[in-house]
């Protein structure tokens, strides 16, 4: 098992390198002179000169890229020119909040999504099935930011039982987690249901019935584990989705997470901060994919560990 994880980690290093290359190109090379972009904010010339010197912008692009990678490896993502603080510390402060939000969103989606999907597959074409699927479809279709506003309006402004925004206690996490979790729970529930129904068509399910199993045992003992394979794969892809959702939810609910930092960095044209935020989240996504990969190989014996 260990060897498998080590191998997977080794593979993600070139991927991370690739991502940093893409990010670097998009932020430094394509826009031409990053300082020109910053100038849009009418910054005083001395600040501009300081940043130009600090970022050695006169060196050729590839030199700057390898310096960026070298510094990144030492945990130094440059300094945010707007807040004049090290990008790394800013991100590390914000990371726990995003993690809390993303994890609670993920939990909401798994704890509600999977059982709901199984239930509606078991009770196919029943009222329960239709309502679960309707609710999931709503979750998938609803714009996350709009749902946030709606929740704020109903639960904070009208009912006043939950804080509108901010992040100084668990109760601040309830609405954002639900809003974020609802859409991914919808995806997971729909996928679990269709995957389970698909698996039920296999020959070994017919064998399980021919043994004299109760239908519910056929579903839970034989079909469920097989149906989890595609669900786990989607969970990996969902990590990226959750982080996208987090970006919005953090803005709506004013949660000081990495997403919020990224949005502010864009609005204030703070390139080093944005670059750091993007790198940070993509590494999170890769780790998420790794976890899902390992989960997948735990379920499916056909995948060897060697």
């Amino acid at each position, binding site marked *: 098992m260990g060897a498998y994880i080590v191998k997977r980690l080794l593979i993600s290093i070139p991927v991370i390198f690739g991502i940093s290359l893409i990010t670097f190109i998009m932020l430094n090379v394509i826009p031409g002179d990053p300082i020109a972009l910053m100038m849009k904010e009418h910054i005083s010339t001395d600040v501009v000169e300081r940043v130009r010197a600090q970022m050695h912008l006169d060196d050729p692009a590839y030199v700057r890229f390898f310096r960026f990678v070298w510094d990144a490896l030492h945990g130094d993502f440059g300094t945010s020119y707007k807040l004049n603080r090290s990008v790394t510390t800013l991100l590390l402060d914000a990371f726990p909040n995003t993690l809390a939000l993303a994890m609670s969103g993920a939990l909401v989606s798994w704890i509600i999504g999977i059982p709901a999907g199984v239930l509606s597959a078991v009770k196919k074409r029943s009222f329960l099935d239709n309502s679960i699927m309707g609710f999931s479809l709503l979750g998938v279709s609803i714009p996350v930011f709009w749902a946030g506003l709606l929740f704020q309006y109903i639960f904070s402004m009208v009912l006043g039982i939950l804080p509108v925004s901010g992040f100084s206690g668990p109760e601040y996490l309830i609405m954002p987690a639900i809003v974020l979790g609802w859409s991914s729970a919808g995806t997971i529930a729909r996928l679990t249901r269709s995957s389970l129904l698909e698996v039920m068509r296999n020959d070994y399910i017919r064998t399980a019935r021919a043994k004299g199993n109760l239908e519910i045992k056929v579903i839970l003992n034989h079909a469920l584990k097989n149906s989890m394979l595609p669900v786990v794969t989607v969970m990996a892809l969902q990590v*990226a989705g959750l982080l996208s959702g987090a970006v919005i939810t953090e803005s709506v609910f004013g949660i000081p997470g990495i997403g919020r930092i990224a949005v502010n960095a864009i609005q204030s044209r703070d390139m080093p901060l944005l670059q750091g935020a993007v790198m940070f989240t993509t590494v999170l996504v890769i780790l998420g994919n790794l976890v899902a990969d390992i989960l997948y190989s735990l379920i499916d014996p056909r995948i060897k560990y060697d």
Partner: protein
Amino acid sequence: MNLARNLMLKKEVIEASDELVKETFWQDVFRSLKKDRMAITGGIVILLFVLMAIFAPWIAPHDPYEVNLDNQFQKPGLEHWLGTDMFGRDVLSRIIYGSQISLLIGLVPSMITMSIGIVLGIVAGYFGRRTDFVIMTISDMVLSFPSLLLAMVVMYTLGASLLNIFIALSIVGWAGTARVVRAQTLSLKNKEFVEAARAVGVKPYIIMLRHILPNCIPQLLVLFTLEIPGSILSEASLSFLGVGAQPPASSWGLMVSNGKEFLFNAPWVAIAPGIAILVIVLAFNFLGDGLRDALDPYLKQ
């Protein structure tokens, strides 16, 4: 090498009824779609929105851009069915005009995404080895970016404009389609009718066009109807974060964003456009689900 898999026996009942299927692929799909109420409602709603977008100038009760400060924040009523916003503009008219941008932003990037994804997916799947490795590694990297963040970075670099939104949403979307099409191509490539074409000496690009692509259509149809709502939602999110459509364009996402400060005393300003987004996205999802069920037998082929 393969065992004597006597396919005829396993599909006894299917074989019996299969023989009398006289419909072509499209007739069969349309017949099952017609029976699916949800898909039909979805289709009708989409049609309404398209008509609304086309005939917006004639339908909209007021001029969406006419600022009239002394009737700010009017409650939804007879005069303004959905009330007015902070500049006294009629919310309903702005939503009607907004449908033009939102539908455009739903369709155009999806088309770009699908075409890039199809070409790269088929090429990667059919040729395999190095081309496959390169294309798939890039797509894995693109998929590692949270899509919204990547779109934001693109908007940051290129600046906010309608064209740039198309580019941003396409850069994000192609990887997903490419992976699906590649998987489909890999399974089709080993099918005997492709081997037969190669045995006849048909050139690879013709094999891709005549044999591989048409058999991906069922999968692509489903993907397309689910890609459109995806990009509508993405654009709305971008606009909400102030990185998408810029004024005076009245994209629904922007309207929600402008209305969020006045949520307490004028909730309709932010909530009404959100409902429009929800309805059109739901409609596409209804249609997409209906299509997937109707195409199910063909998806597994």
